[in-house]
């Protein structure tokens, strides 16, 4: 898929109309992720009940890839069990960060259309921003994660 097609068919829809952007009233988990290369920030809020993500919101702004990826993320995790969410996170990271072809396509579902981002190495950070916030919300609630400058992996430095 060439870049224009990737943007036109996948990214722009979510960029222009990102899903789940209404602030939650009573989130019980929340975290932020910041991309130091552009200063963009995404916050993720979760409502978790009985081991299940009953509601999710992503707030903040950024480039089309980070917004689209975070928006798709909210759709992918809403209503899922935490176990499922963890598994999806792992597969998404395998696809985007490792750029490995060996991820579980079935588990990723619609997210597979983001595969083309893996070859845009400098944009891996963008694609991971919302996901890193999600991961922090689950494992280190309240954290403000910085994406590492070089390899797009979430870094543990806190404010």
């Amino acid at each position, binding site marked *: 898929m060439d*870049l*224009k097609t990737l*943007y*036109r068919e996948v990214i*722009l829809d979510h960029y222009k109309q990102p899903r789940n952007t209404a602030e939650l009233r009573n989130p019980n988990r929340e975290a932020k992720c910041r991309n*130091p*290369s*552009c*200063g*963009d920030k995404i916050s993720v809020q979760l409502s978790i009940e009985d081991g299940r993500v009953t509601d999710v919101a992503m707030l903040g*702004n*950024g*480039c*089309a*890839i980070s917004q689209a990826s975070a928006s798709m993320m909210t759709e992918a995790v809403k209503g899922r069990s935490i176990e499922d969410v963890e598994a999806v996170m792992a597969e998404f990271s395998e696809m985007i960060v490792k750029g490995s072809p060996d991820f579980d396509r079935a588990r990723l579902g619609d997210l597979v259309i983001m595969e083309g981002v893996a070859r*845009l190495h*400098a*944009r891996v950070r*963008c694609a991971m921003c919302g996901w890193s916030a999600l991961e922090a919300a689950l494992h280190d609630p309240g954290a403000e994660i910085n994406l590492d400058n070089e390899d797009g992996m979430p870094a543990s430095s806190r404010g």
Partner: protein
Amino acid sequence: MMNSDSPAGAGISSGFDVAAIRQDFPALQRTVNEFPLVYFDNTAATLKPRQVIDCITRVYSDFPANVHRGIHMLSEEATNAYEETREKLARFINAASSDEIIYTLNTTDSINHVCGSWGEANIGPGDEIIVTDMEHHANFVPWQQLCKRKGARLQVVGVLGSGQLNREEFDRKLSERTKLVAVAHVSNVSGVVNPIPELARQAHAVGAMFVADCAQSVPHMPIDVQTLGADFIAFSAYKMLAPFGVGILWGRRALLDAMPPYRTGGNMIAEVSREDTRFNVTPHKFEAGTPSIADVIATGAAIDYLEALGMDAIYNHEKKISRYLHERLAALPGLRIIGDYFEGKPAIASFHLDYAHPHDIAQFLNEEGVAVRSGLHCAEPLHNALGLNSSTRASLYLYNTNEEIDRLVAAIETVAEIFA
């Protein structure tokens, strides 16, 4: 001894022959997605002419030896060429003596030398250091952190809507408490050229030291440290056609002589005993360990290249393409350039588009073969001051042309099509 071929563009009858100059740069032969490369990321690093590349090859093929006056032939050749670059650099910026030229790793390292040596020794509680909002992090964070360590106060001078330094605020913040003023000669984001001679005169009048970050001026315009007025200047060789791995710190001899060394170890010493060490003289006391020998020698080849073209001619060419760049960009709907255009502005334009994010812009520009930077350009305080998250920067150099600017404009129009 290490004199290189003249640049093709320096022919007698040709004036400034960009087409010929371009032949010297192998990277300009590259294509991206079948488009010829348009390289507009020169603020981050310039391309290298074959004269510089060949010089590196020659050093590593013929005399890849360590310096410091080893007696064997290869070391002698390396030492001579290494010290010859110091002479060339001194002449290039009109330093009083080549002893005032110190080789470091990069501009950041040069500024850390002044901060870690002069700053550590001279800054105390209650003192103030002035920087500006338009500094690169290299000329901001070291002073900020020094102030934190020393209980001193960082005074940050803002910028006006035009992108220019707020002189009134500068005058107000400068006081008897000011011990050091650190200002970029040319902003790497807005291209603003600060009036260093005047600012330095004001700083000296209150007894403050003046550091000019010349990373974006020395490569682009003639610089004479005798008239610039700063006490220290810092710049990077790789931003002026030379290899990575060499920064330069110039300082007034008397100041350098009085400063303690920054790093310690081999070659910067005169005598070492179990109990104590006597240090070598300026500049050697600042050059601990084995330097980037081949990169330094090839920096000499880069200076030969620039001097053959002439810094006046280079600056004139840049002014011309800068005017065209700004005209063309200003005409694009939804595009705003950081800072007002002014006559003589270096060919740097950082901009934002109403309808697209800098990272997406850079991505699509790359798709069309146009290389630009997007992000904060290591100048977060400036972006904060302007209320911007980030920007897209096109920065040009001596080999760039109006035709390439047309390519940039066409590529931005493609972005508009996709995002609009």
